[in-house]
């Protein structure tokens, strides 16, 4: 059954002369006993019935490419359509410059869509051209500075194509805007890990970097995770980096309210086998970090028992 309806000024494929050769394959549906029947719009059904027919036919033409534009618009998460679109681009041996622009515009509209970011990655792998990516991800991050997809894409580009040199500066910029941006801190660790590595000079420098941000906001979890993480992930000893203990002690003595000061001090005491001092801190944390009272009680008991 074909009926001619112009939906919001858009012509239906079903009534388009350019598509009259195609027999649409209707979306599967269960009239008798639908469990959770999705209420597809007429437009959706029209687009996807033609998409199904084209994919069945394995037609990789220019009109098929335009059809995927509509199918992507109707459901940007349909990874089968995105894949088919890449097959069309391959078959038509198309220049990917316009496609890069297309992907950038979809990223702009739907920055948390998995499929468009993967598509862009595929385009870059096909062309080898990664020259726009630092700017693209920076633009995306300027709108949502913790967008996991944008960070993932930036890290992939930087690592795959060895373009490390601007990254620490970029982290500096972001932390100047928001020193609580945990994604930026993670990126910093990633960059150093994969470029200069964790020599003792680098560790000392980065611990001081973290300390400078701790002094500005002692209750900010991110630089504490960074500093403690450097020590723990690289199996280092707090005793080799006494400035961290000095920082904690001075913040503690100034009565700066920060559970991270306390928990870091406790870890430092435990490493130094100073059980009594650690236990005192856990006792204090039961009160000061009362959400986690059961955990601090457990840590206390653990030390008492050992």
């Amino acid at each position, binding site marked *: 059954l074909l009926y001619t309806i112009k939906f919001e000024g858009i012509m239906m494929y079903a009534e388009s002369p350019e598509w009259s050769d195609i027999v649409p394959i209707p979306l599967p549906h269960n009239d008798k006993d639908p469990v959770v029947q999705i209420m597809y719009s007429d437009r959706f059904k029209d687009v996807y019935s033609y998409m199904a027919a084209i994919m069945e036919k394995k037609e990789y033409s220019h009109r098929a490419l335009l059809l995927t534009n509509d199918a992507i618009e109707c459901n940007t998460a349909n*990874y*089968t359509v995105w*894949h088919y679109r890449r097959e069309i681009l391959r078959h038509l041996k198309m220049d990917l410059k316009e496609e890069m622009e297309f992907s950038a515009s979809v990223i702009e509209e739907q920055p948390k869509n*998995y*499929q468009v*970011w*993967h598509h862009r*990655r*595929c385009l870059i792998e096909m062309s080898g051209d990664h020259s726009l990516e630092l700017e693209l991800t920076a633009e995306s991050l300027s709108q949502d500075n*913790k967008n*996991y997809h944008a*960070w*993932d894409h930036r*890290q992939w580009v930087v*690592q795959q194509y060895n373009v490390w040199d601007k990254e620490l500066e970029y982290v500096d910029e972001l932390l100047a805007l928001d020193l*609580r*941006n*945990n*994604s930026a801190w*993670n*990126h910093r*660790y*990633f960059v150093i*890990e*994969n470029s200069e590595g964790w020599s003792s000079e680098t560790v000392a420098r980065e611990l001081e970097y973290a300390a400078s941000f701790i002094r500005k906001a002692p209750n*900010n*979890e*991110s630089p504490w*995770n*960074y500093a403690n*993480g*450097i020590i*723990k*992930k690289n199996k280092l000893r707090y005793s080799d980096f006494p400035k961290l203990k000095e920082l904690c002690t001075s913040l503690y003595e100034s009565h700066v309210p920060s559970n991270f000061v306390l928990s870091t001090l406790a870890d430092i005491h435990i490493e130094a086998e100073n059980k009594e001092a650690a236990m005192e801190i856990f006792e204090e944390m039961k009160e000061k970090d009362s*959400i*986690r*009272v*059961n*955990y601090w009680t*457990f840590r206390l008991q653990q030390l008492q028992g050992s």
Partner: protein
Amino acid sequence: SGSFQCASFGTESDARFVYCASCISYMLQDWRGVDRSLATQFLLSCQSYEGGFGQNTGREAHGGSTFCSVAALKLMGTFDEVMCEERRQRVLSWCLRRQETGFNGRPNKPKDTCYSFWVGSCLKLLGGQDFINKEGNFAFLMTTQDRYMGGFSKWEGYLPDPLHSYFGLSGLY
């Protein structure tokens, strides 16, 4: 690398699909589709300096991927072998720090209904469920419940959806 995509023609690969593959294999009691040793190594490489797990090696630790990784290791049966006490303590304490009243998914991000499930059940898998402040979690989840429509949203005052309703309910346990 040990990770998984979600379709044979090629998609992104990350911890989510390692978890899916583990669930499927566990339910079928058939691990021929998963190289458990390689997948385990991949997941361990996702434990960041923070103690939580990211979606891929080097990526930011996140409540969702932390759940996927810990749960997958448990399902694969490799958790006890590779998660030494030190690793376990680091992920446990990272997860506990996600709780304000409800849970967030990353440091300095707002709490969200669904992380009561991702982080809450991860804590249960780690044996840390008694360290959760149940009253705070309950109080937060109640605020994200929709008074007129029912269901849960990610934040108070937002429209509810099936994902947050499912995870909100689960998070209440």
